[in-house]
C-alpha cells in the first residue's frame, strides 16, 4: 500500500470532480480543501463538529444540478453519523461523501479515533447507499469515478500531515464564495 495523506487524497477529489461544491468539516478537512482548491469558493465549516454531512445533504438537495462532495474528518463523521441514515432515506443523486479516515482527532492533538469505521459495510447495509473503501490515490480516483450517488468513500489515510492553511475561516467570506460559486454554475 502506498502512503496517502490528507492533502493527496483531497487533491484527488478536486482532480476527479473539479466542478463539485465541497462541504468540508472543521479542522484538517477544511485546511486540506482550502489548500487543494487554492482557497476556492466552497462551504468550509470552521466548527459545528458533526454537522458537515447534514449541511452537505441540505446543500445537495438545494442545488440538484451540482455535484456536492462532503469532505469529512473521521471524528466529524462519527459525531454526526446518524445523518448517513438520512442520506439513505432522501438519496440525493448528486452527493458523494468522502471520509478522510486517518484514525485521529487531528486538530486537538492527534488523539486516536477509537472505532473502525467500516463504511463500505455500513453503506452496504443501508438502503440506497453505495460504499467503497480506498487505500491508495489510485483506488480513491477509481472510487470517485465509478461510485453510485449517493455514495460514501472511506479514504484510508496512512500518513499524517497538517495541510497548512488555517481552518479558522471567515464565515462571511465563505457564504459569499458559495453563493458566487452556485451563481456561476458548474
Amino acid at each position: 500500500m502506498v502512503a496517502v495523506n490528507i492533502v493527496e487524497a483531497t487533491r484527488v477529489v478536486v482532480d476527479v470532480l473539479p466542478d463539485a461544491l465541497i462541504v468540508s468539516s472543521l479542522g484538517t478537512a477544511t485546511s486540506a480543501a482550502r489548500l487543494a482548491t487554492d482557497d476556492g469558493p466552497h462551504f468550509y465549516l470552521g466548527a459545528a463538529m458533526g454537522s458537515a454531512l447534514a449541511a452537505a445533504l441540505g446543500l445537495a438537495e438545494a442545488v440538484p444540478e451540482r455535484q456536492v462532495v462532503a469532505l469529512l474528518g473521521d471524528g466529524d463523521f462519527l459525531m454526526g453519523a446518524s445523518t448517513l441514515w438520512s442520506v439513505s432515506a432522501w438519496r440525493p443523486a448528486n452527493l458523494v461523501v468522502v471520509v478522510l479516515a486517518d484514525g485521529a482527532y487531528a486538530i486537538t492533538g492527534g488523539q486516536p479515533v477509537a472505532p473502525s469505521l467500516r463504511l463500505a459495510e455500513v453503506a452496504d447495509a443501508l438502503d440506497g447507499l453505495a460504499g467503497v473503501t480506498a487505500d491508495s490515490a489510485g483506488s480513491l480516483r477509481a472510487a470517485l469515478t465509478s461510485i453510485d450517488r449517493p455514495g460514501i468513500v472511506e479514504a484510508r489515510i496512512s500518513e499524517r500531515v497538517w495541510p497548512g492553511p488555517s481552518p479558522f475561516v471567515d464565515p462571511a467570506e465563505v457564504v459569499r464564495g458559495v453563493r458566487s460559486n452556485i451563481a456561476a454554475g458548474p
Partner: protein
Amino acid sequence: MSTPTAGTPGAAAHNGNVPRGLDWQVAVADRLLAGGVTVAAYVPDSRLDGLLARLGEHGLPLRSLTREEECVGYAAGQRIAGRRPVVLMQSSGVGNALNAIGSLVVPYRLGLPLIISMRGTLGERNPSQVPMGRATASFLGALGIQSFPMRRDSDAAGVTDGVLGLAFGAQESAALLLEPDLGGGREHR
C-alpha cells in the same frame, strides 16, 4: 433498492389522537407557505404533526431527520444556497441543536426560522421535560436568538410572518415558540 416512503408525517399510520387541522396549525402553515418557505426539516412532535401535514398537503418537501442538530445543519446547507428552509422541533431537542446553531448558523448569519413546540412549561406533568423546557428561551437568547411565544390562534399569522421577516429579511435566526395554551400537545399524556 427500495424507494423513500417518508413524506407526509404519519401518512401510513396516523394516530387519530394527534390533532390535525387546528386553526393555529393551518394558519402557521399557510403563512410559512405564503412566506416562500421551500422545505421543512423536522424531528416529529404531536403538536407539530398537523402543521407539517398541512405543509405536505400543499406540496412542500418535508424532511424528517434523525436529530435536531441535523435539521439545523441541513437547513444551513439550504440557506447558504439561498433557499428558505424552516426547522421544526420540540423544545427538548433544542439542546441537541445548540452547537449547530451557535457554531454554524449564527456566525455564518444563515438566518433560520425555528418553530419550537414547547414541553416542560404550563401544565407539564413529566418532570424530565421541565428543565429543558423552562430553559429553552434562555438557551436561544444566550446565542442572540429572539424567541416569540404564541399562545392564541389570533397570534399565528403575525408571529409567523415576523419570524420569517427576521430570518429571511434581517438574516437573523428567530424562534416561534408554540405554547401549550394552543392545544395539540401531549402535556397530559
